[in-house]
């Protein structure tokens, strides 16, 4: 099987990755916050400088007004001349006659803006006589002194503007840097994640193509992708185990059903060859039917196991009193046990209740008793025990016998389908009894243990605690 997605350049796929989109979103957020912070700084600093200028101008006006009051116009002109004589001063002064003719100051003429408006605050562009200087903004306050003399005190805003320019430039650079660093960062980050997901996809692709032994690489960092890889691997292990089980079952079915089918076939063939005697034909047909029934019983058992394993039967679970169940099944086997010279006992401590299917649990216990009765030699003892769970544990059901037991190494194997320990397979049975017990136990969340009963075999079924069931 081929991967259905067409091959696209990495760049396009990258744009489609979640990691990249996340990086992009973070970048956007980052840029916005940088802009906001710088804007705030700009706004508050510029505002502060502006307020300082206003304060200074007001203080100077108050000072100049005082000079004029004390020393008259000549005194005022003197002070202004003195102040404008300082180099690089950004203070602006202008004293004008009531008609607007400049008397003193460092402005060429009374600004148009001040001429039009009443005395107060104005903003205007200074046009300096120097050719290299461009017109630049200024702010000033004008007022009229007693006697009609007009006074303007202001500040050249060139420096403030330069500061503002610098802040804007810094802002733009910050923006460029943020984008310049964030974009490749996001790209790299996205590519890193993409590469690992690509590795996972390649592996799953190979697995889909049939190589079930393949596993997703785990880096050991314990992050989300690692955990994803671990879960995928665990899932693959489980699938592989189930597949192996299925394959084994398929092979076992093919192998174990060939024998009875072959027997059936030869019996029918012989009957055909000896045709003529009706009684012989009847007997052969009856034998054939018996053989068919045995085959069908095997299939039914396999289906039951499959149903129990699928877990779908859990919907019909009901409370099952275990002592009653044990007594019922033991009663079914009691005559058979007695005929074989065995003692069959039921020891129930109270009547603990398990949640489950009465039919399947009965069948599981019946299979265990069947085995116990079948393999325990005459004079032996088979004990069926039901006990409530101690200390929060669920109830326990035990079937113990004094038969030959199962060697420790074989205890896991006997739960598999069609596994029979006798090589001769002389005792009746299809090798599915314990497989069903195992499947039923798993369906009910039980722990199934096969232990040495010294001598014999003891099988315990530990039910889950009532709350967990």
């Amino acid at each position, binding site marked *: 099987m081929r991967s259905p997605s067409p091959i696209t350049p990495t760049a396009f796929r990258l744009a489609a990755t979640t990691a990249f989109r996340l990086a992009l979103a973070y970048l956007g957020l980052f840029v916005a916050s940088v802009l906001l912070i710088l804007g705030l700084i700009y706004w508050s600093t510029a505002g502060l400088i502006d307020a300082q200028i206003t304060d200074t101008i007001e203080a100077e006006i108050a000072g100049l007004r005082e000079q004029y009051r004390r020393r008259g116009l000549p005194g005022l002109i003197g002070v202004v001349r003195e102040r404008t004589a300082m180099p690089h001063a950004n203070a602006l002064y202008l004293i004008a006659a009531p008609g607007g003719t400049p008397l003193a100051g460092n402005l060429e003429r009374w600004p148009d803006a001040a001429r039009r408006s009443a005395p107060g605050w104005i903003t205007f562009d200074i046009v300096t006589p120097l050719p290299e200087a461009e017109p630049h903004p200024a702010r000033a306050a004008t007022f009229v002194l007693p006697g009609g003399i007009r006074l303007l005190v202001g500040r050249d805003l060139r420096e403030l503007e330069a500061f503002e320019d610098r802040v804007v430039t810094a802002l733009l650079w910050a923006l460029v840097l943020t984008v310049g660093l964030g974009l490749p960062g996001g790209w790299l980050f996205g590519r890193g994640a993409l590469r690992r997901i690509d590795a996972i996809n390649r592996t799953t692709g190979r697995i889909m193509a049939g190589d079930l032994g393949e596993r997703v690489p785990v880096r050991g960092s314990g992050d989300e992708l690692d955990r994803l890889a671990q879960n995928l691997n665990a899932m693959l292990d489980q699938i592989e185990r189930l597949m192996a089980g299925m394959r084994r079952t398929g092979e076992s079915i093919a192998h174990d059903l060939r024998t009875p089918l072959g027997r059936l076939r030869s019996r029918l063939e012989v009957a055909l060859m000896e045709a003529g005697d009706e009684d012989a034909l009847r007997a052969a047909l*009856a034998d054939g*039917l*018996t053989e068919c*029934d045995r085959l*069908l*019983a095997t299939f*039914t058992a396999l*289906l*039951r196991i499959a*149903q129990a394993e699928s877990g*779908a*039967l859990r*919907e*019909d679970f009901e409370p099952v009193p275990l002592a009653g169940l044990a007594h*019922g099944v033991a*009663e*079914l*086997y009691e*005559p*058979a046990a007695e*005929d074989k010279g065995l003692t069959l006992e039921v020891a129930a401590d109270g009547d603990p209740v398990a949640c489950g*299917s009465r*039919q*399947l649990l*009965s*069948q599981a216990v*019946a*299979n265990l008793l*069947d085995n116990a*009765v*079948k393999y325990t030699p005459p004079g032996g003892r088979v004990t069926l025990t039901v006990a409530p769970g101690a200390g929060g544990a669920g109830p326990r059901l035990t079937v113990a016998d004094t038969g030959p037991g199962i060697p420790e190494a074989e205890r896991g194997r006997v739960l598999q389908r069609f596994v029979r320990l006798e090589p001769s397979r002389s005792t*009746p*049975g*299809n090798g599915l*009894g314990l497989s069903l017990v195992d499947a039923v136990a798993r369906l009910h969340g039980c722990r199934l243990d096969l232990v040495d009963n010294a001598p014999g075999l003891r099988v315990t079924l530990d039910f889950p605690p009532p709350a967990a069931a």
Partner: protein
Amino acid sequence: MKVLLIEDDRQAADYLVKGLRESGHVVDHAADGTEGLFLAGSEHYDVLIVDRMLPGRDGLELIRLLRAAGNDTPALILSALGSVDDRVKGLRAGGDDYLTKPYAFAELLARIEALGRRKAGAASSETTLQVDDLKMDLLSRRVERAGRPIELLPREFKLLEYLMRNAGHVVTRTMLLENVWDYHFDPQTNVIDVHIARLRQKIDRGFPKPLIHTVRGAGYTLRA
């Protein structure tokens, strides 16, 4: 008995119709659910045999419709599905018995005959059963043969009661397991045979004429 078989598998139906007719029953056959529903509603039958998967109308739905219309003809459901919950669903829908394919014809025959009898005997609430010189008192739960009392364990009593209620007819091992023990699975070994042997010892031992008979390839029957 008059039997209606509703089964879409031609070959299976032919085989069943032939077998049932040879066993002395009158058989009508419907090949789909709609025809089956029509026949079951318009004619009187003693037993219905309904395949679960039918074209036109599902077998369970058919039985549900019949029951809703007040028709209580005993119905045996045939199904290729065979899990415990399928059986429960079948019985919940109003079926009286459930048999999984593939089945032995003897099993099917024994079951539909038991169903037919169950309906006939449902009206009379007997307190005693008698087969030849074997008597069973259902109230005092006493059993005697030829005037001699016989001690039975509770399960043996139930087993004998079932055999006596179906006296003269074949009951299969599966029927015994289902009706006497309420187990719907087949034990790996034939434990039922051992129980019957026990009962035989108590009922037939010391009497010239045995009452419990083994029917080869089918089961057991109790008859004089």
